[in-house]
């Protein structure tokens, strides 16, 4: 189980958002740290097949990012995700079950199971627009888990969550990391301090540090700040 990113470059006109990034990810949680504008979201969107890299490659155990096979094992939670205003929580999940190729019967069962796991079974028939920020994030995580992904890419998943929700979310991610490759992008150090040993730090479209932060002295926050000075 290895996700290999090699020499990734993304140019928008004369701007280069990602400047030749290479790394390998294995099972477990990896934190992607960087300030706003570091190129994290561009990198993630390429890893999810949303953007085509200007050059470089993304391969998971020999499977290209462009293939259906890759999308079949991928789970992605974007920083901000929308929903059709007429959707209830249940309809939202059913829609994504259809897009992830689940048969109607299997989709119904999986939807109910996921609503239970993320604690939204009582809100299943309520329109998503009436959900709180935390509920929407939980629904997003449920959507990610529909196809039991082997690769999970989460972009700023704790943004807008209250402290209690944040801890709950962290625990869930930690659990998911036991069975899958999890890439967790954030600019909040405390989000990944407890659940990720492997860290990738980005600045201005480049990796400025990659490795096990616990092998360094002090807290992750101190280490992160020292790297950015």
């Amino acid at each position, binding site marked *: 189980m290895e996700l290999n990113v090699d020499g990734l470059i993304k140019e928008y006109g004369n701007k280069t958002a990602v400047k030749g990034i290479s790394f390998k990810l294995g099972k477990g949680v990896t934190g992607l740290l960087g300030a706003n504008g570091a190129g994290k979201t561009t990198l993630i969107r390429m890893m999810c097949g949303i953007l085509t890299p200007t050059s470089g490659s993304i391969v998971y155990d020999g499977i290209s990012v462009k293939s259906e096979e890759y999308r079949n094992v991928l789970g992605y939670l974007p920083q901000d995700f929308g929903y059709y205003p007429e959707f209830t929580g249940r309809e939202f999940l059913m829609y994504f079950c259809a897009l*992830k190729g689940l048969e109607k019967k299997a989709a119904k069962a999986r939807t109910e199971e996921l609503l239970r796991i993320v604690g939204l079974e009582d809100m299943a028939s309520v329109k998503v627009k009436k959900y709180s920020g935390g509920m929407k994030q939980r629904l997003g995580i449920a959507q990610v888990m529909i196809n039991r992904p082997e690769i999970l890419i989460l972009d700023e998943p704790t943004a807008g969550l209250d402290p209690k929700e944040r801890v709950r979310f962290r625990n869930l991610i930690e659990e998911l990391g036991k069975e899958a490759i999890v890439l967790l992008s954030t600019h909040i150090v405390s989000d990944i301090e407890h659940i990720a040993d492997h860290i990738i730090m980005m600045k201005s479209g480049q990796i400025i540090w990659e490795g096990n932060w616990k092998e360094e002295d002090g807290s992750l926050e101190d280490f992160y700040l020292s790297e950015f000075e």
Partner: protein
Amino acid sequence: MDKEISKLMRAYSGSPDAAKKDRFIRKVRAEGSKPEVCYLSMLKSQMGYIRPYIWILSLAVIAISALRLKVSEENVSLVLSCVMPFFAGFGFIESFRARAYGMYDLEMSTLYSAKGTFYAKLTLIGILHLLTVTVSSVIVGVSGGGSILMEGVSLCIPYLITSILCMETERTSFGRDNSWSSLGVALLVAILRILAENFKQTFVPGPAVLCIILAALAVIQALEIRKTVRTEEYAWN
């Protein structure tokens, strides 16, 4: 199994390593539970997600054409060709809902991908609109004693012009952020269609010219769809 035998077997063959386990799980997934990518089932599932007003609009267009049976007015043709831009505009809004409501990235990372969903919606709405235009052309053509083909051509031209302009607009950040801008485009095309009616006295393009214009617009439309699908949204945060 006897514990001793089990122990001996493990010593003989060794326990599977993590890599073998991963390979095994993937093999089982590939053989057993990998969902089939089937465009037809995609069309079927997307049909339920097209909002009712799209179907109602088609019925309304047919109802307007049916007026020609009751009222022997040439104006019905003009009214229909002025309705066509709005027909195209609403169809466009429906096809591009994922982008307008921030669902594009989520859909893109699914098995069928946002492009697949977009093409499915475009196919369904396209078939519906083609059927509507065909039925309307037959009704208006037959009841007015004119050519069904030419009636169809005169309906398709404003439809395609609107659709092309909507795609051009969608590729701008203004168009992406304001999905209703396509109705502005539709209004503009409808006004131009009315103005064009005034030139009927001085310049009437022949059927061959109209057919060439229609063919050219259809090619441009296909190119516009391709360009729009390939457009990548700029993200820098």
